[in-house]
């Protein structure tokens, strides 16, 4: 019996997919997410985000820029909502667009939250907390 050990399962990190082609924004998002004890995974455009999502679904949330080269944020939402393994992941759209239609289009496509640029660190932190919380609440129900 001397080899008996209790092992606790490693806590799953809050992995968050970030897709944005602006290095200023990705640096801002990754730093703030790390402060929130999240593990960011960065895609520098829509195509890279799509490739990551094809083989990896272990995300607590996704933050997508609306306007990206190759594939737009809305294209990624449509893909994520059409794949069963990705459907549970809450998605936040961020955009510098001031067109209200884009917000309604995002929600219609399946976005969970919408954060217009410019945003402050507090706004992003609150949004991330709510976004990750929304998945935890969904799991609890």
């Amino acid at each position, binding site marked *: 019996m001397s080899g008996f050990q209790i092992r606790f399962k490693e806590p799953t990190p809050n992995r968050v997919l970030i897709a944005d082609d602006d*290095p*200023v924004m990705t640096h*801002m998002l990754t730093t703030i997410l790390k402060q929130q004890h999240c593990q960011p995974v960065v895609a520098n455009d829509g195509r890279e985000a799509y490739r990551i999502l094809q083989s990896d679904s272990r995300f607590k949330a996704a933050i997508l820029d609306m*306007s990206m080269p190759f594939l737009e944020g809305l294209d990624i939402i449509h893909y994520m909502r059409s794949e069963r393994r990705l459907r549970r992941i809450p998605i936040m759209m961020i955009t510098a667009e001031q067109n209200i239609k884009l917000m309604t289009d995002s929600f219609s496509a399946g976005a969970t939250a919408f954060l217009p640029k*410019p*945003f*402050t660190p507090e706004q992003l932190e*609150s949004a991330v907390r709510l976004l990750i919380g929304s998945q935890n609440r969904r799991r609890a129900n």
Partner: protein
Amino acid sequence: MLVEQVARLSNERNGRLAKATGSITNDILDVATLRAFEKVESEDGSDFVIELIDLYLETTPPRIQAIRKAAFEKEWAVLKHIAHTIKGSSSTLGLHRVAQVCQELEATSLSSSDVVGGLVKALESRFVEAREALMAERKRRLQ
């Protein structure tokens, strides 16, 4: 709804910020907007605002050059996309005059080369102003 909660939190925060910072806003650089990022802790313990300034000053000039090239080659979709990207980071850092001219580039019908050329020149000169303001803020933070 999630979006309403975020909007409420941000309005409360903006109200507090306005009271705290008074009138240190100017046209070229809204210092209060930039300094809101002071509370973010950089991974290596350095000044996060300086990191953002350096990254913006490193990545924006090639984008402006790409806008000029796109204008010359009449690649309007490329031009509008790059203007949109610069607008996002500029407005987030409080560089509203740069963001405003990018907004105009995005919104213009692009039918007139003169109009586009004028807006590209305006973007270049506003970026020079923005760079000076950011460098002054950077210097102040290092003192």
